[in-house]
C-alpha cells in the first residue's frame, strides 16, 4: 500500500496535520474578538489534510525520482555524526563556553570528514573561535557563553 515515496510522505504529512489539528481545536476561545484565535490554525490543519490525501494519489515525477539519491550506508553514518556533533556542541556550549566547544567542534568534525592538514586545521579551529569571541564581545556587545575559562 505504501510502495511509493509520495504515499509514504503523504502518511507522514497526514499524521502531522492530524496532530496539529488536535491541538488547534484545544486553543482556548477568546471573547474579545470576532475571529477566534483557533480559526486560522483549524483551517490550515484541514487544508494540509486535503493536500496530504492529494499527494497520496499523485505519482512522483521522473524528474524528482532522478534527483533523489539513494544514500549509502557510510553516507548516512556521516550525516548522523554531523547531527550528533551539532547536538553535543549545543549541549556543551553554555557549560564549557564558546571558545573551547567551538575549537573542539571545528577540529573534530573537519578531522572526521577527512581533513588532514594539521597545521591549518589547528590554526583555523583556534583562530576562528577566538576572533569571533573577541569581535562579538568587543564590537557587537553580544556576550557569547564564557564557560569555565577566563574567556
Amino acid at each position, binding site marked *: 500500500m505504501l510502495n511509493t*515515496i509520495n504515499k509514504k*510522505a503523504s502518511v507522514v504529512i497526514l499524521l502531522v496535520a492530524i496532530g*496539529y489539528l488536535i*491541538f*488547534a481545536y484545544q*486553543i*482556548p476561545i*477568546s471573547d*474579545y*474578538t*470576532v*475571529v477566534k*484565535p483557533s*480559526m*486560522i*490554525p483549524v483551517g*490550515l490543519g484541514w*487544508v*494540509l489534510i486535503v*493536500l*496530504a490525501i*492529494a*499527494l497520496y494519489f*499523485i505519482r512522483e515525477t521522473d*524528474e*524528482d525520482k532522478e*534527483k*533523489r*539519491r539513494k*544514500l549509502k550506508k557510510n*553516507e548516512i553514518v556521516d*550525516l548522523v555524526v*554531523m*547531527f550528533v556533533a*551539532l*547536538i553535543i*556542541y*549545543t549541549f556543551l*556550549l*553554555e557549560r564549557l563556553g564558546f571558545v573551547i566547544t567551538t575549537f573542539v*567542534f*571545528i577540529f573534530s*568534525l*573537519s*578531522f*572526521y*570528514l*577527512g*581533513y588532514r*592538514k594539521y597545521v*591549518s586545521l589547528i590554526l*583555523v*579551529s583556534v583562530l*576562528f573561535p577566538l576572533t*569571533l569571541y573577541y569581535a*562579538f564581545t568587543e564590537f*557587537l*556587545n*553580544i556576550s*557569547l557563553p564564557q564557560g569555565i575559562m577566563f574567556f
Partner: protein
Amino acid sequence: MGSLEGILIGFETAFSLEGIMFVLIGVLVGTIIGMLPGLGPISAIAVMIPMTFGMPAAPALVMMAGVYYGAIFGGSTSSILLNAPGVSGTVATAFDGYPMAQKGHAGKALAIAAICSFAGGTISVILLMLLAPALASVAIAFAPPAYFALMLLGLTAITSLSDGSTIKALISAVVGFMAATVGIDSQTGTQRFTFGNVNLLEGIDFLVIALGLFAIAEVCFMILNRKDKSMQDMHNLGSLKITKDEMKEMSGPIGRQSLLGFIIGVLPGAGATIASFIAYITEKKISKKPEEFGKGSIRGLAGPETANNAATSGAFVPLLSLGIPGSGTTAVLLGAFMVIGVQPGPMLMTDRPEIFWGIIASMYIGNVFLLILNLPLIPYISKILKIPRPLLTSLVLMFSVIGVYAVSFNTFDLYLLIGFGLIGFLMRMFSFPAAPLILAFILGEMMERSFRQSLTISNGSLSIFYQDPIALSLLAVAALSLLFPVIRMIRMRKAAK
C-alpha cells in the same frame, strides 16, 4: 516631504563614509558567500544579522541589501569556473559560461558576467527609483482585505512557479504558515502550540527556520558530495580582456534583459532564477545562431547574467513599497528588516526616507564595488573556492549556531535549528521546495492579522473580500495562478501522447 528631498537624503545616507563602508562589507560578504556552491543569499543574510546589532538602522539595512545582490552577483563565478552554481539564480549562467571556461576563456566569461551583472544591476536601480515610489503611493490606499489578497497571491505564485510538484510546494507553504502560528497570538494574547514551553511564547525565530532549512540542509549535501573531485579543480582564468565586437554582442541582451529581468523581479513568486531562465530562452529564440547556445555563446551568458541582477533590484519594489516579499530570499530580507526594527511598506518612503532612498541609492555604489570585486580582483577572490569542503562544512555550521545564539541566547533555539536542519535535508531529498515554506512563515503572521482585521471590519462576514475590488481581482489572479500548473500538466500529457 517631497520625493526629491527624500532622494537627496537617501544619497546623503548612502554616500556618507559609514554608508560606503557598510555597502562594501555587505557586497563583499555577499559575493563570497554567494560564490560558495550551495550557500545562497538566504544563508548569507541570515548569518549577517547578528552583525547589525547596535548599528543604526539605515547602514545596517544598506549592508543587508548589499549582501543580497552581492550574492547573486558573486554566484556566477562558481557557475563559470566549476559548473556548480553558487546560487540558484546563476544556474543558467553555467549553460554557456562553463563551456566558455572549458575552451580556456574562463577569464573572458567572468568579465562578461561581471559587466552584464553590473549593467543589469545599475539599469534596474534606475527603474526601481521610478517604480517603487509610484507603487507606494498606490498601496497607501490598500485596505486589510487587499493586503491579505496580495500576500495570498504571493504565496500561490511562488508555489505554482517553483519547479516540481505544485502539491508539494503547497504542502511546504501550509507547513510554513503552521510554524508561524506557534506562540502567543498577537491579537488576543492566547497561547497557541506552546505546550507550556516558555521558549515558544514568542514563536519560532525566523533565523532558526532560515538557517535550518537552507544553511544546515546545504551542509548535509556538502558532506555527501565532499569527495566530488570536480568541485576542487578549477580552470585557469586566462585573460580577462573583452574585445569591441564582444562588447557589441553583449549590448543587445543587456538592453533587453535589464528591462525584462526587472519586470519579472517585481512580480510575486518569480525572482532571479526564473528571470535568468526566461532570459536564456528568449535570447536563444531571437538569436540568429541558436546552435551556438550551450557551447559558449556570449549572448547565452550575457542574457541570464543581466536578468538575474535586474530581477534582484526588481524584487526590492514590492519589498520596500508594499512591505510584502515575493520570494523566499526577500522574505528573509524582510525578517532582517524586522530584527533591525524597521517595517517596510507604503509609509517607509515618507516616514524613513533615509532608509527607503538610502538602500536604493546605495545600490549604485554597491554595483560599482561589485564590478571591482568581480573583475580586476576576481583572480584573488576566486581562491575562496579552494577552501577544503570539510573545513567549510564545520565553519558554516559554526556560523549558523552563532547566528541563532546571538539572537536568542538560549540553547532551546539551537535544538530547534538542528531539527529544522533535518527537516530541510529531508525536504530536499524528497523534492519539497523550501522557498514557499520560508515565505509562508514570514507572511503567516501578517496574513493572519490582515485576515482578522478584515473580518473585524465586516463583523465576521467573508463578503468583505469580494466587495473590495482590489482584493477581489488579486484573489482572482491568485486562483488563476494555481490553475496554471494544472494547465501545464494537461498540456504536457497531451504532448506526451
